[in-house]
């Protein structure tokens, strides 16, 4: 009887998660328009990926995204957490303010930033007021600025999230360690390097996973703001996958893109975790 508590969730999970995932792998090997029966093409979709210039652009953009989005949010989040760690007057307000963007829906965030980026929007007016008219751009319509213009709102949101993760990690460090370090004459930098950073290892693993997963699945903010345009200049793997699936109705090829995204995310995270566990064991 009690077995039900194990088997029912497992069946639900299998039906709603494993099954569609396996279907995705199967579809990646077919040609499917979403209506008629899928046609088996073997590895044809993956072969096509190699010669696809838009795929190359989106891989490059995803790499840029991963580095900037991941790097800035990790470094910035840690910095903010260190800054806001100690209980001071008004610190709660700052923490809450930085965390607020996480609460907003990304589509709402995108709409707000779209207004900021309008040709006569806040960003350009601000530059104009500073006398920097030469720096004014149609931020989202310009192929050289679109990707970075979309990155900013995504970062704006992620920073608060990573900050909270690090705050939790920093609060978990035993103060005795700092006392000992101080007694041994360690300065602030040495304390950070030899106490804080090693103690944050488990949090770092979580942050890395979160960042890699979040940047590979970054979709809503890009789709809502540029749809990967103009002419694919802000295309990420995720937006290209969506466009291929639901605009071009090439669901087989889109599934192949999804498999690539999965392999990338899984690969990065597993490599890190294996290394982390090995270090811990030795």
């Amino acid at each position, binding site marked *: 009887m009690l077995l039900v508590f194990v088997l029912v969730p497992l069946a639900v999970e299998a039906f709603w998660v494993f099954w569609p995932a396996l279907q995705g792998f199967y579809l990646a090997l077919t040609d499917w328009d979403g*209506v008629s029966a899928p046609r088996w093409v073997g590895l044809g979709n993956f072969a096509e990926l190699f010669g696809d210039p838009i795929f190359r652009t989106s891989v490059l953009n995803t790499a840029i995204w991963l580095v900037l989005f991941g790097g800035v949010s990790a470094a910035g989040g840690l910095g903010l957490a260190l800054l806001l760690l100690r209980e001071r007057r008004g610190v709660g307000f700052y923490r809450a303010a930085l965390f607020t963007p996480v609460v907003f829906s990304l589509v709402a965030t995108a709409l707000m930033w779209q207004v900021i980026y309008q040709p006569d929007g806040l960003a350009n007016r601000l530059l104009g007021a500073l006398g920097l008219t030469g720096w004014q751009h*149609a931020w989202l*319509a310009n*192929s050289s600025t679109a990707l970075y213009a979309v990155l900013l709102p995504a970062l704006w949101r992620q920073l608060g999230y990573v900050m909270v993760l690090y705050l939790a990690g920093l609060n978990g460090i035993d103060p005795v360690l700092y006392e000992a370090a101080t007694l041994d004459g360690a300065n602030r930098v040495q304390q950070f390097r030899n106490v804080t950073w090693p103690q944050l290892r488990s949090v770092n693993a979580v942050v890395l996973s979160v960042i890699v997963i979040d940047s590979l699945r970054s979709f809503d903010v890009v789709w809502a703001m540029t749809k990967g*345009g*103009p*002419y694919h200049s802000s295309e990420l793997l995720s937006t290209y996958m969506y466009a291929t699936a*639901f605009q071009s109705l090439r669901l087989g*090829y889109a599934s192949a893109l999804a498999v690539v995204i999965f392999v990338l995310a899984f690969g990065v995270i597993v490599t890190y975790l294996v290394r982390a566990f090995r270090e811990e064991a030795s």
Partner: protein
Amino acid sequence: MDNAVLSHWVTTEETRRALPDLARRAAPWLTRRRFLAGMGVAGSAAALAGCATSASSGPVTQSAGAISIQSNLSAPQAKASIEALAKGFSAQHGSPATVNTIASETFRTQLPSYLTSNQPPDLYTWYPGSLLNGYAKKGLLLDVDEAWQTMANYPAAFRTLSGDGAGKLIFVPTSYYWWGFFYRKSNFAKWGVTAPTSWSGLLELCRALQAKGVAPIGLGAGGNTPWVASSWFDYLNIRINGAQYHRQLLAGQSRFDDPRVAKVFEQWRTALPYFDQQGTALSFQEATTSLLQGRTGMMLIGTFFADAAPKDTIPDLDFFQFPVLDASVPLAEEGPTDGFFASSRTAHRADVLAWLKYVATAPAQELYIQNSSGTVLPTNPDARDSGTPLVAKGRAMLAAAKEVTQFFNRDSSDALQPTADAALVRFIQKPTELSSILTGWQAAAEKVFAS
């Protein structure tokens, strides 16, 4: 620890210990290894081919109830019109109709899901073309021949347009509209300019407007409406190479890197300096605002833009025809047609056909026009349009055309549209990269045609 808590702890602890034993008793065959093996079998390719990728078929039980209309008419005035139509239908026919308004982009991407679901919506607003023909081939669309039997007065062209290419009628057209260079009469008067009739006249007008500090040509190919740029491509192509070549090109029978296509862009290039700098940054709705506020002089756009414009500006609107470039090319105009189609899996077949017959009547089309901005033309020849000079001029322009094209995506497919968006927006921003743009467009188009 008090007694209640203690006894609770004991029971849970007991259960925990008893669990593995229970499991063995319930399913003695179920070891971990066997279970995993079972999962593996369930995941085999044969099983995978089923389920999510197949659409159900078979006869549908008919039932009573409201018919549902999936509508992509989200502009305020168009939405009010279709809701008025639903009310009119209920009043006349006695059975209700409910309208679900969905943003156009969502509507388009969800269409396959709607049509293949177990209980699809009954009716859909849409346009004829390759997309529908594809669904018709798969048996997803209702044969609407019965409705057409009440439409004997319709011109043959609409009938041809509503076929699935295999002899079946699947569409009921209810309205059509035209494209042109729209402007505000009061603004042209204020600037002391008049509508041109030739390409050189158009460029002259642009120079005059530019001298007055007005961006001559608004575009609206930014935001979520990059497809608006295709109107320029369509018009230049039907003016330079003719409608027949245009259709062949869009059907994949000619190449986008063909010199004839390059000629289209060479012509376009001469007007590019007069395009609004923000042409690819603003959506057509925002570009409409710019036009109405006199920041841009004119805009090549379809009459649907008026559905989002303040009603008091509509009498001030006028348009001129896209200039003829080569008198030897048969005159063609863009005249996109809109209407309804129905799902073959509808549970309200009789009511659905009653709806289609209703919207094809002259009174229903007049009701629609009265509630909208009044800039569309009725497909029923006996229906009166809004009667404004603007509409009379538009109607006359389409009537004089030897050929009528629908629009880029309607003449080709919604899958080809994004390839045009990428190519055209890039051309507008970087006209010097033309040859690589055309090669890229051809490569992208080939993939669409191949799938």
